[in-house]
C-alpha cells in the first residue's frame, strides 16, 4: 500500500476530531459524573463518619444519662423508701395518738356512765328500800306505838340541849299573843297525853301556848309539832325522809 501524506494527515485530523468529540461528549461528562459521585461518596462517608461520631457521642451521653438515671432512680427509691418509712412512722404515731385519745375518751365516758348508773341504782335501791320500809312500818304502826313515841317526845323535850331550847324559846316568843301551836299525830291522842304535850311544849318555849291537835296518817307513827318557825319531828315518816335525804346528799 502506498502511504499518502494527505490521507495520513486527514486520518490524524479525523482521530483528533474523534478524540475531541469523545473528550467533550463522553470523557468529560463521565469524569464529571465520576468526580461528583466520588464527592458524593466522600460526603456520605464524611456524613456517615459524623453520624457515627455523633452516635458514639450520643451513646456515651445516653450511657452517662442512663447511669445518672439509674443513680437517680436509686436515690429516689432510697428517698422514697425513707419517706415512706418516715410517713409510716408518723402515721402510725398519729394513729396511735388518735387511738390513745379515743381510748381515753371512752374511758372517761365509761367512767361517767358507770358512775351515773351506780347513782341511778343507788337512788332506785334507796327509794325502793325506804318505800318498802315505810310500807312495812305502816302495817306495824298502831296507836300504842304513837303513844310510846309521844312519851319519847316528852322525854327528849325535857332533856333538850341549851341551844335547841334557845331556838325553840325564840320561836315561841316570836309568836303573837293569841297564836297557837300545832301538833299533828299519826293517831288520835288521849286527852291526858295531849295535856302533857301542851304543857311540855309551853315549858320548852317559855310561853303558855294553846295547842291545836290534828291527825295525819301519813306520819305512820309518832307526831310532829309546829311552834312558830320551829318544827319538832318525832315520827317514822320524817325519820325515813331524813335518812333518804342523807343518802341523796351522799350520792
Amino acid at each position, binding site marked *: 500500500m502506498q502511504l499518502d501524506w494527505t490521507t495520513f494527515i486527514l486520518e490524524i485530523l479525523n482521530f483528533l476530531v474523534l478524540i475531541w468529540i469523545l473528550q467533550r461528549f463522553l470523557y468529560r461528562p463521565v469524569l464529571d459524573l465520576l468526580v461528583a459521585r466520588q464527592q458524593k461518596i466522600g460526603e456520605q462517608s464524611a456524613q456517615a463518619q459524623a453520624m457515627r461520631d455523633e452516635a458514639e457521642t450520643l451513646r456515651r451521653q445516653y450511657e452517662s444519662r442512663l447511669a445518672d438515671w439509674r443513680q437517680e432512680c436509686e436515690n429516689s427509691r432510697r428517698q422514697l423508701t425513707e419517706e415512706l418509712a418516715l410517713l409510716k412512722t408518723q402515721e402510725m404515731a398519729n394513729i396511735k395518738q388518735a387511738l390513745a385519745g379515743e381510748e381515753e375518751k371512752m374511758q*372517761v365516758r365509761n367512767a361517767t356512765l358507770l358512775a351515773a348508773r351506780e347513782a341511778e341504782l343507788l337512788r332506785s335501791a334507796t327509794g325502793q328500800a325506804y318505800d318498802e320500809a315505810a310500807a312495812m312500818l305502816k302495817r306495824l304502826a298502831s296507836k300504842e306505838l304513837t303513844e310510846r313515841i309521844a312519851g319519847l317526845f316528852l322525854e327528849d323535850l325535857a332533856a333538850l*340541849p341549851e341551844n335547841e331550847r334557845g*331556838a325553840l324559846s325564840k320561836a315561841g316568843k316570836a309568836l303573837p299573843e293569841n297564836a297557837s301551836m300545832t301538833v299533828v299525830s299519826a293517831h288520835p291522842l288521849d286527852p291526858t297525853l295531849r295535856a302533857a304535850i301542851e304543857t311540855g311544849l309551853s315549858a320548852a318555849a317559855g310561853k303558855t301556848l294553846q295547842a291545836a291537835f290534828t291527825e295525819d296518817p301519813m306520819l305512820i307513827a309518832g307526831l310532829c309539832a309546829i311552834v312558830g318557825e320551829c318544827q319538832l*319531828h318525832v315520827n317514822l315518816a320524817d325519820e325515813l325522809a331524813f335518812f333518804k335525804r342523807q343518802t341523796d346528799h351522799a350520792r
Partner: protein
Amino acid sequence: MNWRFLNGKPIMPDKLAAVNLQDYRFGLRLSERGSVAGIGDGIALIRGLPTARLDELISFDDGSTGLVFQLAKDMLGAILLSQSQGVTAGMSVQHTGRKLEIGVGEVLLGRVVDPLGKPLDGLPDPDFSQFNPLEAAAPPIIERDFVKDPLYTGNKIVDALIPIGKGQRQLIIGDDGTGKSTLALDAVINQKGRDVRCIFVLIGQPRSSVAGTIETLRAAGALDYTVVVVAEANALPGFRYLAPFAGCAIAEHWMRLGRDTLVVYDDLTRHAQSYRELSLLLQRPPGREAYPGDIFYLHSRLLERSTVLGLSSGGGSMTALPIIETRQGELSAYIPTNLISITDGQIYFESKLFAAGFLPAIDIGRSVSRIGGKAQHEAIKAASARIRLDYLQFLELELFARFGARLEAGVEEKLRHGRLLREILKQDRLEPLSEQAHLAWLLAYGEGLLNGIPPEQAAKRLHRVFEQLPDSGLKLETPKPKWLVKLKSWLSEAHEPAA
C-alpha cells in the same frame, strides 16, 4: 343560826352525809319552818328559814316547789316553779335540801320540754335515769382544750368568712326580724348526720313562734337529734330565767360523755328582761337600764360552760349560739356589750341589708370570729383568704361609684367582681350547704370561673353545681386541680342550656 340537830348535835347541811349511823338514836329532831308572807307574779316572799341557801329548793304545803332566789335579813324571795294557784299567804314552807336538777339523757332527743324537764309535746313523760343540776360550775382551765374542729352552719358567709369552731361561743346579734333565728335554725338543720346533739332554747317567745320553730325542725328531720326547751312569753318569769340554764345542763351531760353539742339561746334579751323583772319584783336595787348589778355574771356563768374538753375529760364540746336583739342597730347598749365581751365573736345582722334584699343580712365588716379561723379547714381557709378583704373593698368602691364618676378599668373590674360575689353570698333560708359546696363556690369565684357570667345567672349555675356535688365524690381533701377540672366541666354543662 343552825337549826338542824341530831341527838343534840348541830349538823351542817353539807355534812349530813357524815352522820355515823352507829351513833344514831331515834328521837326528837328540830327543823326550820317558814311561812309565806306574800305572793304574786311568779314569786313568793317567805319569812323564816334563816339557814336557806341560794338556789335551794323549798317546798310549800300544797306540794308546790320554789327556788330560793334572794336572801334578805328577815325575808327570802323564791321563784315559783309550778303553775299551781294553791300557794297562799301564811302557808308553811320547808327545806328540801336539794338543788334544782333537770333530767338528762338520750330520752330527751326529739322532745319538747320546759325548764324543769316536763314534756310539752303531749307525749308521755321521759323516763329519766340521770339528773344534772341547772347551776353548775364551768369546767376549770385544766379540763379545757383548744378549739380545733369546725362546726359548719351551712351558711356561705359564716362558714367561709366567719368560721365557727366546736366549743366556740358565737353571738348572733341584730335588730328584730333580720333573720337571726333563721341562721340558728339553719345551723341546727345542717348538723344532720354529723353526730352533733342540738339543744334549742326558746325564751319568752310567743306560742305561735314556738310552734313554728318546732314544726320547722320536724319538717327538716332535725328534731331527731334536737331537744327543744321552751319557756313561752306567758310563762312564769322564773321559767324564762331558768330556761337557758336547763338547756345548758342538758348539753353539758352529753359534753361530759364526749359528744359534740350545739346550744342555741333564742334569745338572751328576753332572758335578761325576765331576770330584770324578777329582780325588780324582789326589790333588788336597779342599775343601768334598770338591770341588776349582776346581769353580767348571769350571762357569763351561763356561757362560760360552753367549751371544748380535753381528752382526759371526755373530749366533748359545747358550742353556744346566743342570740341577742338590738334596738335600731345600737351595739353599745348594755346587754349587747356584755355579750360581745363574753363571747368569742359575733355575727351581726344589719337591718338595712335586710331591707335591701341581701339575705342573710349579715354585715361582714362588723362580724368577726376570734378563734374560729384556727378550726377552719385548710382548703376553705386558703380559698377564702382574700374574699373578705375584697368584698369590703368592693363595698367602699361601690359607695364612691355612686357619684357616677368615670372609673378606671381596674376599678370597674373590681366592682364587677364585687357584685358577682354579693350575688353569690345570698342564700335562701332553710337551705344549708355542705362544706364541699362551700369549697366549690369559693374555688369557682377565686379562680375566675364565673367571670363573664351575669351575677344572677352565676348563682343559678352554682346551684346546679351544688346539686351534682354529692355524687361526685369530691371532698375537702381532694387536690385543687381535680376540683377545678370538675368545676369547669359542671359550669360548662350549666352553660349549655343558655347557648
